Every structure is written in C-alpha cells, then in structure tokens.
C-alpha cells in the first residue's frame, strides 16, 4: 500500500507548494487549525498564496503566520476581526480580501469537493454580498448563485487518524476540517494520534481515507485559547 504517513510536516508538503497556489485551511479562529502544516508552509517561503479559511486567526498563529510573513496575496474568509496585522495590510492595499458569509463559504467548499459547480442560497440576498451575483426566484423567494471552491492543497487538523487516512475530530476542533478535506487536489492532514487501520470504529470515522493523500503526526501540539471564559465554583 502507498504510504500516506510522512515523518514531519515539511516532508508531508514536499513537491506540493508553488507560488500563486490556492490553499484551503481548516480551523475556526485558532481552534482545530493545522498549525504545524501552516508553519511548514511559512518556512517554505512559497508566495502569492490565495488562502481560503473561515478567519485568519490571531497574529502569527495558524494562517496568521502566513499573513505576518506576507505570503498571502488574497484571503477568502467570513471574518478577519481579530488579526491586527491582516487589518493593517488590508488597509494598506497589500492584500486582497473576499468576504463570504460563513455558511456560504463552507457550502461552496463542500460543493467544490463533491462535484457541484454552483448552487443557489438565500444567504446574502439584498446585501453587499449579492453585488455582481446572479439572483433567481424559486417558489417566489429570491436566491443567489454561489460557485464551488476547489483548492490546489487543503491542510487540516484531526484528533486521530489511522495510516489509511481515516480521521476523527475532537469536539469543536472539527469545524471546517472535514469539509476542507474533500475540496483540494491534495489534502494533507496533521493528526495528534496516529493508529493502525482497524483501531477506529468504522462507524465513527468522519473523514474516510479517500480524501487524505498525506498525513503527519503532531503529538501534543500547543493549543492557544483565544478567549478564556470561566465560571466560579458555587
């Protein structure tokens, strides 16, 4: 069997990176981000990237790494609120930005990954998002046409994976990862726990191995909490 498991993030990306490519990255804020793979992309020096991700996270973390290092030419996202470096680059006209409502973004990625070139959605009708987009009535309601998104490379983070590439996720670190896993020519997954095929119950698998071309184990990744909110014990 073709070996999908690479020894580190840099080798897992070997031969996959080129200037101007489109990279789709999992994660929500800095939760469930493929930080090790993004660090390896930063180290590679590849430039003029189009990045598709929900939001670029915090300064210097996750996709924020590639913002700081000025490797991002264009961002397609639903939110960019907590990244000051990105805001500065954007206001200086150094980086392009395409905002897409979060639900339309994830649906566009799902469509791209499942062979649907375009779909109609009610989200954004009558707003700035509708500008330049085809609208159409179905059963008397107005909808927008949105196009699928398919990347050159997807990088995702999972909790556990077997060497066949079957993946499971942990709590809300799942978020966009399973959808992005389906929507690129090559998907590379970092996993916290690497196991043998058969160790994950096949009824529990969220991402079947067919979507994962390469993997790397990242044991005990550093996980930052963006907003630590707690309650007092009674």
């Amino acid at each position: 069997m073709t070996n999908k498991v690479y020894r580190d993030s840099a080798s897992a990306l070997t031969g996959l990176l080129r200037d101007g490519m489109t990279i789709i990255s999992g994660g929500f804020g800095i939760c469930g981000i493929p930080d090790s793979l993004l660090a390896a992309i930063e180290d590679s020096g590849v430039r003029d990237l189009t990045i598709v991700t929900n939001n670029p996270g915090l300064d210097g973390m996750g996709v924020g790494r590639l913002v700081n290092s000025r490797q991002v030419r264009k961002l397609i996202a639903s939110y960019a609120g907590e990244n000051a470096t990105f805001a500065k680059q954007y206001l200086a006209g150094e980086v392009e930005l395409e905002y897409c409502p979060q639900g339309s973004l994830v649906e566009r990625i799902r469509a791209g990954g499942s062979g649907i070139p375009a779909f109609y959605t009610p989200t954004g009708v009558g707003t700035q998002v509708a500008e330049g987009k085809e609208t159409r009535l179905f059963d008397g309601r107005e909808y927008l046409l949105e196009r699928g998104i398919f990347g050159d490379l997807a990088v995702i983070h999972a909790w556990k994976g077997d060497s066949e590439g079957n993946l499971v996720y942990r709590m809300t670190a799942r978020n966009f990862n399973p959808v992005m896993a389906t929507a690129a020519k090559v998907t590379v997954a970092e996993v916290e726990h690497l196991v043998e095929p058969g160790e994950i119950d096949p009824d529990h698998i969220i991402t079947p191995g067919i979507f994962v071309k390469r993997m790397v184990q990242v044991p005990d990744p550093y996980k930052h909490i963006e907003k630590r909110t707690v309650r007092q014990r009674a």
Partner: protein
Amino acid sequence: MPWNREQIAARAAQELKDGFYVNLGIGIPTLVANMIPEGVSIQLHSENGMLGMGPFPYAGEEDADLINAGKETVTKIPTTSFFDSAMSFGMMRGGHIDISILGGLQVSEKGDLANWTIPGKMVKGMGGAMDLVAGVPRIVVVMEHEAKGQSRIVNECTLPLTGRQVVDLIITDLAVFEVDPARTPSLKLIELAPGVSAGEVREKTDAAYVEALN
C-alpha cells in the same frame, strides 16, 4: 424606566418555548442564556459545530478544543452533539433552528436588519450573521432604541444590510415591536417598558408603525 440590558434579555427569553433550538448572538443576546423561563428546556446552537452548549467551564477545566462561535471556552452537557460547519449551517439555512436572538445596529420599517458593519471602520466580516437571518424562521433583534440620539428603528437602513425583511420582533430598552412585511405599516408597537410612554416611543422612533398596546 427603560429596561436595562438584563431586562431586555429577560424579555427576549420569554420568546423561547420548551424544546426550542436556539442561536444567540453576541452581547445582550448572550445574557438570554441565563434567563430561560422555568419549565422551558432549550438547546443552544453554536455555529462552529455544536448543539447543546453548556456554561463556561470552571477555572482550570478550559479546553482549547471546546469553544463557542465567539471563541469563548464552553462546556458540553449530556445532550451535546458535535458536527462540521457544513451541517451546522445546513441547520440554519434549512430552517431547523427555531429562533435566533441577535443584536442590531438598525432595523427598518420592513424588517431589514443592519448589524454587521459600519462604513468607514475596518470591516471585520459578516461571519455567520447573514446565514442566520436568511435561514432561521424567527429572528428577534435586541438593541438600544437609540444610538447617539438617533433612532435605530428607521424607515430605510443607512448601514449595509445583513438581511432583507428578516426581523420578526424588535426588543429595545423602551418597547417591543412586531414586524410583518405583508402589512403597511409593517411595524406594530405591542409593548412598552414599565414607565415608558407611548409618546416617548413615538418621538424616538423614525419608522412608521401602528400601536397595538393592551
């Protein structure tokens, strides 16, 4: 006396019925979670991929893999389920969430909502707000009645829209309005905060509305 933020939230909480699946926005809407009426059990939806959202964790029990859509640490409860973002927004867009309670910057006479951006400021992005208002069948907006002396209930929104004809109920510090775009005027004043007069609301509201106070 006008309602304070907690009282606005408590009034909004009265819109929740037993068994509802509920999405709460950031700000005043977040307070609603602590004011669920007796005998009403609801499940909170967090658009990053969680239903059945529990309270904040005890100090020391925070988990970076368990956050809400505001990126705050939360907890799971026995009814919790996790899912991906595509399913999460399918729940919204498909009309499966019963109600969403959101903050607002402006609501128009026809129920248009502006709540995601103010021109001239750095645009943070709409996140999931446009999906929520497009898909959830009942949208309740909670907000201060005025901002800097200007009515937030307007004939036409001057701020960029989040959605067109999407608001069903407006709860401000002064009053409660129902919205039904099929009527003209579409706004109906149905309730006043205690000690607030109908005249004061009339004076502080730009949009046309009818009064239907009991």
